[in-house]
Every structure is written in structure tokens, then in C-alpha cells.
């Protein structure tokens, strides 16, 4: 089961973890702050290079 859960997360990364990018951006803007540049890049690409 731990392996299956890991594989499920890994194989569906963009669908599962993608929304957290928007949530992180929202946390900055809700606090009245700019989204830091390095986060903005990751937020835009949403791509992971292994």
C-alpha cells in the first residue's frame, strides 16, 4: 500500500499537486504581498525535471 500511494501521487503529480501552486500564490496575495519570483516561475511551468 505505501508503494501504491506513492505511485498514485507520482503518476498524478500535476493533477494532485498542481492546485497547490495556485493556493500558494493566493496565500501571498491574500497577505498583500507579491508572489516571489522563484515561486512565480515554478507556478507558471508546473513542470518537474527529475
Amino acid at each position: 500500500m505505501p508503494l501504491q500511494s506513492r505511485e498514485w501521487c507520482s503518476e498524478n503529480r500535476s493533477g494532485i499537486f498542481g492546485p497547490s501552486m495556485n493556493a500558494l500564490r493566493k496565500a501571498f496575495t491574500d497577505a498583500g504581498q507579491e508572489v516571489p519570483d522563484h515561486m512565480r516561475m515554478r507556478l507558471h511551468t508546473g513542470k518537474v525535471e527529475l
Partner: protein
Amino acid sequence: MAHRGLRFGIFLAPFHRVGDNPTLALGRDMELIQWLDHLGYDEAWIGEHHSAGWEIIASPEIFMGAAFERTRHIRLGSGVTSLPYHHPFLVAQRFVQLDHMSRGRAMLGCGPGALVSDAYMMGIKAEDQRRMMDESLGAIMQLLACEEPVTMKTDWFELKEARLHLAPYTYPRFDIAVASATTPSGVLTAGKHGVGLLSLGAGLPGGNAKLAEHWRMGEREAEKHGKTIPRDGWRLVVNMHCAEEDERAFREVKHGERRETLSYFSETLGRPPMRSEDPLGDGLKAGTTLVGSPDTIARGIERLLEYTEGGAGAVLFRAHEWANREDTLRSYELFARWVMPRF
């Protein structure tokens, strides 16, 4: 006295490689807590996660209940309870019970939920998690105050004339802290409710530079809400491994760190923002990862405290299995013997 005021402990997610026997891994976590208790560490915070196979403790409360019976001094907290996953009334009730059963050694750590995959399975939207955490903590604080019955309605929970049937063992209440990692949300919530802060960002690249700024932000938010946030309740979370010499310490953790970073943070989670590709190399340069001899570690802690511009209450080490079991246990012993007394 083991040391001079600064408290030390661990932040136990925990991290165990997928494929390892989970029963034995949970046993090692318990063994570690007992070892830290023996060595004079002050506190340990235990995580809550439900997916991805690495961070295998689902209920910090269950773990804490068992650990309290096997330890004498160490204080244990949830690191952290993902508030959007639970009705706030039940969170308050459970921690009041733990506070009594441990005779005041329980602490409540709060967060929005670190693994989005956990929230996904429960149908909770990532963009709602921080708001839900804030709403839940607001309810918990009112319940723990044990004043008027609490009536409150949100789009995900309701309280109707709710009151706890026991007051906390600790007067006026046990320690509560909010986790803060990559965004300002955690520190603002801590300030709003006047509770402690777990700065996980201290162990992330660039995190140290923001420590003082974040703390001031929390102080301003607290003031806005007529609250204060004491520096004693501020905990800094960093990576640490100690051996007799720098080179030996680095050699002991190098392979395990790569395995954790690549297998878990990159291949499984897609490397969350702010998480370095090379936490060991980058962290050592930035002083956010402390690996080395006792002297090297002590200098690292001094630098970390300088970043806070006024000090903090505790330094917590993010528990990992970068090194093997024996070297990991020895690392904590070396730290307790040769570094702890300096602080």
C-alpha cells in the same frame, strides 16, 4: 541543568523510505523519542500525513499517547494537526485529554495540511485549506478559553452552544503553535490568535533571511488583534546531523539525503516550491542545514539565532533518516553532550 534556556527537540514528520517495514519504522520513531527523553531534549513534534508512503504517522495523538507512557520529561506536540481534516471540537477535546493524561506535556501544532494529496482524497480544495485552518483555530481558541458556549457556523463545520466538558490540565491552556513554511499565512495566523510559531522555513534555502521579517509581520498582526506572540513560543526547524568531524558527518548523510530528495521530494511530490534540488549542498552554504562536528553545529545555531534579531525559544531538528540508525542516534547524543550545554 542540561542547558541554559534555549530548548531543543525534533520535528518528526517522519520520513521513511517506501519499501521499509512500516511497523519497524514506527518502532524506530518511538525509540528515537525515548532516546531524546533520556538525553534531555525538551520537545518533539509529530506529524500527520495520509498519502505518498513516506510520512507514515496518520495520527500524532495516538503516537503521543503511547510515547507519553514511555517517557518521563519530554513534551510532545502534534507537528502538525492538519486542522481542515478535523472538526475543531474534536481536536480541542482530544488535546485536552492528552494534556491531562500527560500531566501537562502535550502541545498542539496546527497547519493547513502539508500534503495536497491528503486534502485531495478528502475532497478539500487546496485554495481553501489556509482559510479553513484559520477558522478552525479560531473555534479551538474560543473552546479552550472555557468562557461562554461557542456558537459558530462556517461552510464546513458548525458549533452549537459548544463547550468542552473538561478544562485543560495546563492553566490557562497547553502550548499551541502554527506551522509556517513558504508563505506568510502561518505567521499571520499565529499573530491573529496570539499563539506560537513553528518556522519550517528556517530549514529551506533562503528561509533564514526571512526569519526576522516574518516574526515582525506576526507581531504586527498580533497587535492588530489585541494579542501578543512571545518569542519563547517561536521554534526554528532545521536539518542537523552531528559526528565527531565535519567530513565524517557529511559522509554519513550524503547518500541518504540524495535518496530522500530524489525519491520523495522530486519524484513523488514534484519538488514543492522553495524546496532546493540540493538541500544538503545549498543548505550547508546558506547555514540552513547543519551537518558537521559539534563545533560546526554550535556555530550554525549561533548564526541561526542571529537571523532572528532577538532570539527564539527553541531549535528543532527535522528528523530524517539520511544516516543509518546507529549514526542517527549517535548524532543526537553528540549534540546533547557537546552542543546543548553551550545554549
